[in-house]
């Protein structure tokens, strides 16, 4: 059953279109991550759902009720902001209590709710501190608490972790996942960080220049990207894209592609292959020189300079098989993991395996 339903929601300011008409459904208890580069309209979309920005067209329904004409506070939606947006002159307790206080809910009930939430978020010892006495992670938890106290139907998170250092970000990510599991709440989460999207989401919505490129589970997006953009945006390091013109200069590549997977490459197509789908093979058809190595621990990323390609080819291998810098290596793709894209439409035709 869907909780939130966006129909033809769009936004333009003057003649500039920020968001094309968009349709999206979010199911009860689902964590949907909206991801995209800056300027893709993801925050605008979130703010429109929250009621902070007006819609240019379309409707938003929450549990079958139309909400796009209501005030933000009457939408049963709570939002957590990027800079926490805690009220600096109020204590943690008052901050969390704030939304209830202005709804005129009685004091005893308010107090109980705040303590309940402080329990859930492990904030008990900080209740009477002021926001500037807290660390970033604690502030973020208070912000989440202030959102929780309204028991909303839907939580909105606007890049909530981008101000934290990477260690804390990991911790908060798992805290949000746990909270989501514990409360079963429906969450829409905006971020520009694809790792965050991959690790948190039940479903990911990829936005690009005000358009939805693809909606799907993290695995779907990783394995079956619908377009070149999604293919390059999801996954780190990003996918290698090899153009027909360059591939033509590699002896035997096309023939091998045809013999391995039965696809004849056309001039207007290009090939996408993830760094992890490339391996070192003495008989490999691509040869190049290792110019840089990035060690990640048990894996490493080789930056390979191939004469045929303008850009470095990225290869992700086990650190034990590290050939050393400046060595010349032969590379062979895992043919089953090769994607073929139309260059003009940028749409993915097939992953070879499926054809």
């Amino acid at each position, binding site marked *: 059953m869907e909780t939130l339903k966006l129909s033809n929601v769009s936004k333009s300011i003057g003649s500039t279109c920020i968001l094309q008409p968009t349709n999206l459904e979010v199911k009860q208890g689902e964590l949907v991550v909206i991801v995209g580069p800056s300027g893709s309209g993801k925050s605008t979309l979130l*703010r429109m759902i*929250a*009621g*902070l920005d007006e819609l240019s067209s379309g409707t938003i329904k929450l549990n079958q009720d139309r909400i796009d004409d209501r*005030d*933000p*506070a*009457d939408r049963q*939606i*709570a*939002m957590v*902001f*990027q*800079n926490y*947006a805690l*009220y*600096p*002159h109020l204590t943690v307790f008052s901050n969390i209590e*704030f*939304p209830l206080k*202005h*709804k005129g809910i009685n004091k005893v009930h308010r107090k109980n709710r705040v303590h309940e939430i402080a329990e859930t978020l492990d904030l008990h010892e900080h209740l009477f501190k002021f926001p500037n006495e807290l660390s970033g992670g604690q502030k973020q938890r208070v912000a989440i608490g*202030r959102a929780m106290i*309204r028991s909303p139907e839907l939580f909105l998170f606007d890049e909530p972790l981008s101000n934290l250092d990477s260690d804390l970000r990991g911790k908060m990510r798992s805290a949000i996942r746990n909270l989501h599991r514990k409360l079963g709440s429906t969450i829409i989460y905006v971020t520009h960080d694809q790792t965050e999207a991959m690790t948190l989401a039940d479903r990911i919505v990829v936005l690009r220049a005000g358009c939805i490129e693809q909606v799907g589970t993290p695995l779907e997006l990783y394995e079956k990207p619908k377009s070149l953009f999604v293919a390059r945006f999801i996954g780190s390091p990003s996918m290698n894209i090899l153009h027909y013109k360059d591939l033509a200069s590699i002896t035997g590549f096309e023939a091998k592609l045809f013999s391995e997977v039965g696809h004849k490459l056309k001039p207007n197509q290009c090939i996408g292959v993830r760094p992890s789908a490339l391996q070192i093979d003495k008989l490999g058809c691509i040869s190049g020189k290792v110019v840089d190595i990035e060690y990640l621990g048990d894996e490493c990323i080789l930056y390979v300079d191939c004469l045929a390609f303008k850009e470095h080819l990225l290869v992700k291998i086990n650190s034990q098989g590290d050939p050393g810098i400046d060595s010349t290596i032969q590379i062979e793709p895992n043919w089953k993991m090769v994607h073929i894209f139309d260059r003009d439409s940028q749409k993915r035709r097939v992953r070879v395996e499926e054809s």
Partner: protein
Amino acid sequence: MFRLPKLSVHFFLAIYAVIALLPFGIIVLNSFKTRSGIFGDPLSLPDPTTLSIAGYQTLFASTDFLLYIGNSTLITSVSLLFIIGLGAGAAYGLLESKTTLSKWLWLLIIVGIMVPLRLGTVGLLELMKSLDLLNSLIGLICIYTAQGLPLAVFIYTEVFRRFPKELIASARMDGLGSAKTLFFIVMPLTRPTTATIAIFSLVPVWNDLWFPLIIAPDPNVRTVTLGVQQFIGQFTVDWQAVLAALSIAMAPAFAIYALISRNFIRNLSAGSIKG
């Protein structure tokens, strides 16, 4: 670059402070002297032969000085309340509604900074007369509020413009309307600005002689500054009483400044009144 050593900076500042404070000191000092003491040696401390509190006695015996202080206090505090309340409200409202009309309205208010209200005294006098507000504290409060508003709106606009948008968005999500957001979120967080505006507006209101003299000369609504005038005659001046009255009249402004100067200085150094 040449820099003054810290000690000499303080030396110059001390000299400046002495120069600035000396007149006030002399006023207070001489208010405790006899008439001949004042004119015999204005700079000396009161000694047993010159010590006298006759000035203060005259003040409280022959005039209703406590009433004047009460009037001044009432006028000043109510005007301040209106200047701050209306100023903040107007600034916030005009900033939030982004229409062309609101921009013009804002400009119209700001023009008031450059046009002295006294130029319109005749008009104001007629207006007050037709509104039946002559010789009333309400009339003076209206005038002072109008006089203080432009600067208050101007300063508040500049400060509110830089107020974190996310906090306002957050307050909206939490169910606060514009007025409540202003009162519960924005105003508490811009307190130094309010202190600055309070000081800027307070001094001219407390010290004003012009409007009380013209609009409200009646003894019942007399202000402190006007009250002092009655000791300054055309031929004789009761200096003891004048100095005593001035000493008392200065006190509140000093006290309030001391109370909120920390905020005031913080705001000045934060560059909030640039412009």
